[in-house]
């Protein structure tokens, strides 16, 4: 909230919850798809997330990460992609053969590159 609105109104302009697809940044999606094409196969069943070791106690949702990367909405998953413990349970369970562990690792890598302007 800007100082003007705080002092003058006691409220401000709310941040939109909208995913504006036309403004999304799909460079991370491209980076992962180029290196791990199985990324495209996810149909959001959630089996990866159901058995996720890290997800049991922290916000790590591989299914949702996949969706957000595809839409080009990166801010909400910035932290999440670094929390994978690489156990491989998701890989074992995925019915579509998505190489989920690698997807997570590539997502974390791509985010770092994004910050360094290397994408």
């Amino acid at each position, binding site marked *: 909230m800007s100082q003007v609105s705080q002092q003058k109104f006691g409220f401000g302009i709310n941040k939109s919850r909208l*995913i*504006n*697809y*036309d403004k999304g940044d799909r460079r991370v999606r491209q980076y992962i798809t180029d290196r791990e094409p199985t990324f495209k*196969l996810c*149909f959001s069943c959630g089996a990866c997330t159901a058995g996720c070791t890290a997800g049991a106690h922290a916000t790590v949702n591989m*299914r949702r990460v996949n969706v957000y990367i*595809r839409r080009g909405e990166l801010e909400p998953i910035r932290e999440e992609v670094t929390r994978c413990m690489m156990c491989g349970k998701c890989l074992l369970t995925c019915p579509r053969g998505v190489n989920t562990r690698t997807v997570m690792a590539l997502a974390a890598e791509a985010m770092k590159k994004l910050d360094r302007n290397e994408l």
Partner: protein
Amino acid sequence: MAKQIIIAGGGVAGIEAAATLADMGHKVNIIEKGSSSGGNAVRWHALFPDRRPAGEVISYLNNRVRNKNIEVTYNTCVNKVRHHGSSLVINLSSGEELKADAFIVATGFDLFDASRKEEYGYGIYDNVITAPELEDMFNGGSLYTADGRVPERVGFIHCVGSRDEKVCNHHCSKVCCVTAVKQAIEVREMLPGCEVFCFYMDMRMFGPYYEELYREAQEVHNVNFIRGKVSEASNTINHKVAVKVEDTLAGRPLRMEVDLLVLMTGMEMSATGASLAEASGLRRGKNRFLSVRDNHMHSNNSDLPGVFYAGTCTAPMSITDTISHARSAALEVNLYLSER
């Protein structure tokens, strides 16, 4: 003496049932409301799941209907069927009255009128079209927006007029999901630079190789699937179409602009079939399609002896299932006639 059978409707079901009966030696008269046979299928460019040209099925049907035992009466509807003694009396829209030993209702379906979903602006916004209109474009060999641009983004809305209480249709039209996937792939092949999005509630890939086609759409053709029902479409200043949908898998509203929005219009009981049913006392279900005597064992039978059903007058069906259903209707008719 050969038995006389009358079939209402000269679409896929009517022709296949007629030809199967004609092959058995029966005389069949098809009463077709239009000026040509083939029904809704003639408009299609290619068919799921293998994307064979629809023309192949149409020419198969055209060959089937060319049989000395089959007569087709065009531009005529069956108004009513009733029992008179041991035979059936059929009243035609021409005023003529025919006698028959058996009667098959094969009046098919009507496509949902997309303008009834007012929020999508069909008939108002130039770049909102229906699935059959996209087939017309495929048949024409090119894909342009109304203002002559090559589309860079195409969206498909599933379940338009299906699974929707607001238009009094609780039922699933079954074939629209796989049709959208098929059309999405065709758009991607025709215009490799064009992004394609399917907005769906559930992906109902019920038939053989449908799920595989869905997977192929993702894996090979990079079609995007967004789970959510589009709540409204509107015009943008650049003559694009803005859609509002919930990305239910992200749990957030999503907005995007597309150059062309395709509405996957579903199936409804045909108007001619409905009036025939009302006049003849044929029972209809809550989905307004004809109610069959038994959902499992007698899906070709009405409650009236000698009156049978074939195809999508009973429920939405694919062409594959319609042909099977029509053949089984012919078998039921043959059995009925042989027992008399």
